């Protein structure tokens, strides 16, 4: 007969600790399962890493302490709390959870227990993928690397070809004999910066790389590799570090019977206001349900126990909700109800989702005539009209009035581009403004929100791009039939000569257009940014027409695809519309550039597109014909940014006398913003992407940036200017740095009145900051250099 508990908690991370310590405090019969270490995510951090406690205002409700500090101090205090409260900790990996009539049966290893309630707090990191070969469980096979300095003069094999594998291999190669095992023939999955690091190390003979190879088996002190070129190879090996990704916890959750709203990777299961899942008695807390911060996890674990005990308590975040809604001058509960009643788009939200929406959003009290945002502002938030109404003023002098219960701002939200219209309040009222990140999370997990925004976005995109002046109801059919299609960077939308059957409206990202010249060489002609469309000629003619150019995604793209049949069905019924569209298409000029059929100009354009210039708001370029290498740009950057330069002049790539240093491009769709737990990365209305002080130093943005422009930096006081420093005799105390490392990147010197210090400090005028339009001018100026 298996042992029975009131509460089984799975995962000793923040959520699990919050629950377990509260259960122990109430002297409930409980068990806490952990397959690795207590606080494992933090345990895996590098030694002495500083951990932040955000959001500062959220109170901590728990019997376990947590405040910002080093990795060690936090882990110590957690382990101490477990011991002093007598938490029943079981080090074992849970294999399955099965609900029967009266309880849950939890299997781990060969054993099992039963429990009345289960709290799942396993986080989203998932279990590291194992080698899957004999010997994978030997003690010298590891899946993480905390401290590369712990290894000296060892034979080490790193398995994997991603960023983590490369970073580990390179760090270890300083003091050890390192090999890296790559299943494929290159390191294409990794960031550019890491690719060049590993290639340099391999070329210099510091790391031996086995390409197109697989692990055969592992023995003590040895590893056996199936190499594509050399067959079975035996190498001496004291340590294996496998960085081959993780198995997301979704599969495990689904095996327990938990339902996800859709197949999106980022979607999270729906829970009740008490964090109960679709299976009664099974609770989910923490990052599993979209709350990545430590404090939130601890509080939720605590609250679940209180709920199980029947003590209904106010959620810990009530104080944050109160703060958001007090200015409405009515009881907070009433405001909450009114907002949800007036905004049908949010009707399918669960209570925790709705509360989080309100905490992250701002309710604006607007007066008639007040401007909500201006056309060309670089903001990306999403707006809902709780009461009152607004005028959308389009660039063609058309004005549309939008009423209570509708939303606007979805173009900026989805495309990351500047605002396409000015919005002004037409009546007094209340407007809910929600940050992009929160909306993207909701779009990924709530289907009805995704559908509503998609439909509106598509009809707007079609109306402003290919069908201006066409009545909206004609578009409705096309919109419902249209599909969204994603393209990775470098993926081809269609090739020259292919039969043309579809039109693509670029919703996000940009594409490059190339044609074969007389010699048969593919020459890049131009690029098109989001909001434009490609392939329209194919839809106009009756017969199937071959494509006259190849279109490739310059960065990751999202497109709206319209089939010829759907398109023709609509316009053939409306002869006037057809005529109008035909003449429009003839007149239409693509955002034209002077790129001729000159291969070299095409190569230069290609180089710049490859460097993300087309998707950039503002790129630092250096005219190599003028640069004398004085590095005053770097000095200026360091002096104005706490002692650390945010640009690496020598590090960037260069081509035809144009150098693109390693420096932020302020992308239109910044990948750095994608995974920032405290939302510290924001785009200012002028377009700059900046990191706010709320950065917790997690380093996600550093690994997400494809151009390697973000670094972890310590704040260091700028050296004061003095006559001594002029002569190079100033005091040097560079070692004095304070506080934890935070992410640092170019902020376009937005706090300085004169603009970017790098450009202002270039004595020869070689450094310039440009947008994609300027890029084309530079290309034509440099044409002479191309020969």
């Amino acid at each position, binding site marked *: 007969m298996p042992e029975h508990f009131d509460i089984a908690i799975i995962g000793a991370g923040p959520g699990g600790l919050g629950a377990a310590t509260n259960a122990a405090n109430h002297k409930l019969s409980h068990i806490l399962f952990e397959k690795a270490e207590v606080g494992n995510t933090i345990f895996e951090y590098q030694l002495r890493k500083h951990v932040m406690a955000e959001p500062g205002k959220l109170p901590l409700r728990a019997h376990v302490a947590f405040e910002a500090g080093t990795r060690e101090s936090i882990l110590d205090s957690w382990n101490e709390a477990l011991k002093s409260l007598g938490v029943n900790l079981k080090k074992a990996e849970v294999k399955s959870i099965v609900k029967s009539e009266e309880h849950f049966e939890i299997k781990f290893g060969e054993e099992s227990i039963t429990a009345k309630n289960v709290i799942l707090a396993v986080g989203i990191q998932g279990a590291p993928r194992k080698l899957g070969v004999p010997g994978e469980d030997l003690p010298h096979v590891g899946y993480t690397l905390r401290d590369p300095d712990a290894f000296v003069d060892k034979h080490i094999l790193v398995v994997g070809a991603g960023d983590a594998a490369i970073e580990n291999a390179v760090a270890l190669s300083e003091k050890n004999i390192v090999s890296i095992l790559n299943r494929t023939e290159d390191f294409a999955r990794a960031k550019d910066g890491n690719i060049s690091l590993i290639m340099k190390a391999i070329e*210099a003979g510091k790391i031996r790389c086995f390409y197109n190879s697989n692990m055969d088996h592992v023995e003590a002190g040895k590893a056996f590799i199936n190499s594509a070129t050399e067959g079975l190879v035996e190498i001496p090996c004291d340590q294996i570090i496998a960085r081959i990704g993780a198995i997301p916890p979704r599969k495990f959750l689904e095996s327990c019977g938990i339902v996800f709203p859709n197949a999106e990777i980022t979607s999270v299961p729906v829970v009740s206001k008490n964090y109960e899942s679709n299976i009664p008695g099974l609770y989910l807390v923490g990052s599993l349900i979209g709350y990545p911060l430590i404090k939130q996890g601890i509080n939720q674990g605590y609250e679940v126990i209180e709920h199980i005990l029947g003590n209904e308590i106010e959620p810990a975040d009530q104080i944050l909700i109160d703060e958001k809604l007090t200015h409405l001058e009515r009881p907070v509960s009433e405001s909450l109800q009114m907002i949800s009643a007036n905004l049908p788009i949010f009707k399918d939200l669960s209570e925790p989702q709705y509360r989080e929406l309100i905490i992250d959003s701002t309710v604006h009290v607007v007066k008639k005539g007040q401007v909500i945002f201006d056309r060309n502002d670089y903001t990306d938030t999403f707006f809902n009209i709780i009461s009152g109404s607004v005028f959308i003023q389009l660039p063609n002098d058309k004005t549309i009035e939008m009423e209570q219960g509708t939303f606007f701002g979805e173009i900026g939200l989805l495309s990351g581009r500047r605002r396409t219209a000015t919005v002004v309040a037409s009546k007094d009222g209340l407007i809910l403004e929600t940050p992009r990140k929160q909306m993207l999370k909701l779009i990924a997990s709530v289907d009805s929100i995704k559908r509503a925004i998609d439909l509106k976005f598509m009809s707007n995109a079609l109306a402003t791009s290919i069908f201006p002046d066409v009545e909206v109801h004609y578009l409705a059919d096309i919109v419902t039939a249209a599909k969204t299609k994603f393209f990775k960077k470098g993926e081809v939308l269609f090739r020259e000569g292919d039969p043309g059957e579809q039109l693509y409206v670029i919703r996000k990202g940009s594409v490059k257009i190339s044609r074969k010249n007389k010699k048969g060489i593919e020459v890049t002609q131009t690029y098109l940014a989001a909001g434009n469309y490609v392939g329209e000629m194919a839809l106009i003619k009756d017969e199937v027409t071959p494509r006259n150019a190849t279109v490739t995604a310059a960065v990751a793209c999202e497109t709206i695809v319209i089939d010829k049949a759907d398109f023709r069905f609509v316009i053939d019924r409306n002869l006037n519309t057809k005529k109008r569209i035909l003449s429009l298409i003839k007149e239409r000029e693509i955002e034209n550039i002077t790129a001729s059929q000159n291969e070299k100009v095409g190569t230069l354009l290609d180089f710049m597109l490859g460097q993300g210039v087309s998707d950039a708001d503002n790129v630092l370029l250096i005219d190599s014909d003028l640069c*004398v*290498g004085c590095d005053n740009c770097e000095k200026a950057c360091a002096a104005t940014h706490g002692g650390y330069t945010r640009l690496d002049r020598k590090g960037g790539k*260069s081509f035809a006398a144009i150098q693109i240093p390693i420096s932020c491009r302020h992308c239109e769709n910044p990948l750095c913003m994608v995974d920032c737990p405290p939302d510290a990365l924001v785009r200012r209305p002028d377009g700059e992407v900046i990191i706010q002080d709320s950065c917790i130093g997690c380093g996600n943005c550093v690994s997400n940036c494809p151009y390697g422009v973000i670094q972890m930096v310590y704040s260091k006081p700028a050296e004061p200017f003095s006559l001594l420093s002029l002569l190079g005799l100033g005091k040097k105390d560079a070692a004095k740095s304070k506080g934890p490392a935070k992410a640092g990147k170019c902020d376009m010197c937005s706090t300085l*009145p004169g603009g970017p210090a790098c450009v202002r*400090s*270039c004595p*020869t005028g070689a450094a310039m900051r440009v947008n994609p339009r300027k890029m084309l*001018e530079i290309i034509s100026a440099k044409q002479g250099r191309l020969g």
Partner: protein
Amino acid sequence: MRQETILNYKNFLWLWIHLGALIVVLIIYALHDPIGAPNGGTWLGYSYGIIAALGMCVLMWFGIRKRSFFSSKTTLKGALAVHVWLGIFLLFLVPLHSGFSFGANVHTLAYILMVLAIFTGIWGAINYFSLAPEVGSHRGKGNLKELLQQLDIISSSIDALTIQKSKKFIDLTRMFDFTFQPTLKRALCQSMMSAPVPRDVAAFVSDLNPSEKDEGVNLIGLINRKYELANLIIEETRVHFWLKLWLYLHVPIAVAAFAVMVIHIISIFYYR
């Protein structure tokens, strides 16, 4: 698009200003009829002296501006444009200030030092414009450190190839391989090194044992790359040397000129 440089900054704004000023001072000088020969002691001499001294202060201010990274009122490019054209203007103004009277004294020393500082500056400007397009590392050819690393790798690969090879192979290596010690003297004095002519090499390679032929071809490829790298290193060192050298002369001479100018100004108060 034409990239704006320090010379054509704002359509040669500072050139035109200084050219205008030069014409004005020349006309006044021509009209001026002092008692005795024109010299620094006349009212015009004093006036031009004061303008020149202020000009020197502006020139020296550039050293401060270059390091004031928070400055928002001027760009460094603009400041350098003023610096260049003002310096050239002073070259003409100071002789007018002295009425072309020179001698073996501290006053003339101040002028000589100023002229030297200005000429080193002009030389530097010429270097900047002529050498910047030749910096290989700005064009993706790798910086000096990377080039040296690559050279090391190639050299050790060549060494590795010659292990346990026939005498003919070793002879081939001796014939075409070379040792390259990058030194500044070498970079400045030696012209580019030329790789062996393919025709000469072909005869030697075809003479090798059949089993070593492939490696012989490899070897020649490596040696050719080594020549290429050596030349890049020579070129890169040379360019950077001339890009930097002038500044090591310009700054101390300018500081000295300023100091002697101060002595010159103080000394004239003791004249009777």
